[in-house]
């Protein structure tokens, strides 16, 4: 899985790509491990190019959320397709994550924090 990292004023955008399954979730976890020790005020996880996320991938989303919660930071997930949003909803993630439709909306939302 290719993860494109872009610096923004308040932190980082991580653009994820393709399927996040049991194999590619390991690469997503590696990215988490790289970033976990650096305190980052805001993460945007851009999923516009993500086709589906299985539970192995959800686990890493949760790790990012826990990290930001611990550091009093922010996390916005944007660009989920309907099916992936549905998976987040079934998993009880919609009550703990913040969402935006597009990256631009996510960036605008960050400005309100």
């Amino acid at each position, binding site marked *: 899985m290719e993860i494109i990292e872009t610096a923004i004023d308040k932190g980082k955008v991580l653009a994820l790509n393709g399927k996040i399954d*049991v*194999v590619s979730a390991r690469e997503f976890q590696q990215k988490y491990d790289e970033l976990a020790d650096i305190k980052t005020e805001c993460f945007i996880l851009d999923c516009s190019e993500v*086709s589906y996320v299985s*539970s192995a991938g*959800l686990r890493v989303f949760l790790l990012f959320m*826990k990290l930001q919660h611990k550091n009093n930071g922010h996390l916005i997930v944007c660009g989920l397709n309907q099916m992936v949003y549905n998976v987040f909803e*079934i*998993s*009880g993630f919609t009550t703990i994550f913040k969402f935006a439709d597009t990256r631009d909306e996510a960036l605008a939302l960050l400005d309100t924090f």
Partner: protein
Amino acid sequence: MKQIINAIISNDIHQIETVSEQLVVMGKTFALDEQLVNTFRLVFDELLSNVVTHAYGDNQVHHIEVRAYLDSYFIAVIEHDGVYFDPKNAPKPDLYSSIEERKIGGLGVYLVDNLINEVRYLNKENKRLIILKHKL
């Protein structure tokens, strides 16, 4: 009812991709909705990774067979010779805890149950079957 997929993979997590690719081909061939195909891919990722990770205690190579059929339903069978997974003993997913306390276990099987109309786990004498049935 047409048989669309007949794949035999070994208990190696990287081989799940073979099934995923065949589901994509099935979707293209029968012009299925892309998000539905991705739902099936997700479901096979959950079920096959569970079999590969939990069904075998030895270090031997085992074969897992996947067959899928299509008419007005998508019907699929996963057949393996590992340990039976009894859904009654599946850990309950944690859907409501706070962020700090939230645990991730049990989500995979729970997702499969919620995404597919009918899921059955059968324990036969010499084989274990997981049967999926989903209205198209």
